[in-house]
């Protein structure tokens, strides 16, 4: 079953992705009018199609950071390497998802606000979170023997920042989050497409994390084999 977990998740993700793509382009364009018949300022039209993948990737970024954070807590408490593997895999995937969030967000900003970037709280915090994740990967690669514990601390630090990005930054250029936020108040035709996209990327996220965990275990096995090789005189 373990052997098929990645292809099953990836296959289901592909099906859900194809479905979401079809629904996204069937969904109505997002625009509204003022009382005098003129277009209101929050009308995004076709550009709003970016929302379905941009926000879904942001959700997966947050999920990956939480997985890494909790796995790191478990690792620091138990010192069981399996938790460290999960945390490391989740951070690698979070870096990829975070890159998509930042790039698609920047393109959206150009269309909606006519700038590629502005230093509003949510954008700045998202960039900082992504840099923390990159820092985590660099620590794991270069920090030596204590890398796993230092990296675990960084993952927990990154996780603490997520609620700030999601909710606690207050009103800025981004639409509101939470109960009255843009996701909760989506039009009926948009809701299905959005949640199907989230499901597709959740399955994709799970497939990537499992695959990366397998890869990290292979790296550990290789390290152990090298030590054996050194002991046996096969490697010099």
């Amino acid at each position, binding site marked *: 079953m373990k052997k098929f977990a990645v292809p099953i998740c990836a296959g289901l993700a592909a099906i859900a992705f194809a479905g979401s793509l079809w629904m996204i382009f069937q969904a109505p364009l997002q*625009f509204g009018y003022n009382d005098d*018949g003129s277009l209101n300022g929050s009308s995004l039209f*076709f550009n709003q*199609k970016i929302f379905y*993948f941009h926000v879904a990737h942001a959700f997966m970024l947050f999920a990956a950071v939480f997985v890494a954070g909790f796995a790191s807590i478990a690792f620091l408490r138990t010192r069981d390497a399996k938790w460290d593997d999960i945390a490391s895999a989740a951070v690698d995937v979070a870096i990829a998802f975070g890159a998509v969030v930042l*790039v698609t967000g920047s393109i*959206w900003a150009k269309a909606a606000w006519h700038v590629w970037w502005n230093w509003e709280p949510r954008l700045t915090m998202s960039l900082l979170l992504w840099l923390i994740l990159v820092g985590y990967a660099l620590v794991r690669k270069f920090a030596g023997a204590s890398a796993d514990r230092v990296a675990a601390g960084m993952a927990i630090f990154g996780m603490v920042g997520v609620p700030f990005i999601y909710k606690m930054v207050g009103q800025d250029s981004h639409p509101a989050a939470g109960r009255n936020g843009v996701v909760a108040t989506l039009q009926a035709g948009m809701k299905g497409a959005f949640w199907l996209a989230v499901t597709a990327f959740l399955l994709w996220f799970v497939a990537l994390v499992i695959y990366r965990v397998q890869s990290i275990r292979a790296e550990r096995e290789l390290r152990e*084999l090298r030590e054996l090789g050194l002991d046996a005189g096969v490697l010099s």
Partner: protein
Amino acid sequence: MKSILVALAVLLGSASVARADDPVAPEVKRDDGVVAVDAKALRKTCVDAMNADKTFAADIVKKADADAQQKRDDATVAAHQTAATEVAVNERHVVLAYAAMWIIAAFFVIFLWRRQRALVAEIATLRGDLTRATAEPEAAKDKKS
């Protein structure tokens, strides 16, 4: 020619009769002695005349409604034209964003796949080397004995 002249005479005669039937504009003598039209009284006369003619009042309302509807229609058409332009302009951004998502995902998957392949290959090589290294001394021992 004679008949045209007769027709003209009849027309002018009827026009003068109609003018004689029109209400006379109310006049008021100002302080400086000049006799002027009483605007207030004139307005009342006009309003009374319009109210008396139900068809005329309905026509005014109909015309005002039609003008307002036309204005709304024009605004809607303009808004839709703006919307269509916005959609066309935004296509470029949507294509860019989707392309970025695919490129990042593809790079990540290729990176993971190549890394995994290299790891599997290196593990297999090392395992083989270790098996041979442990097998050779045993074979040498067997030969000696």
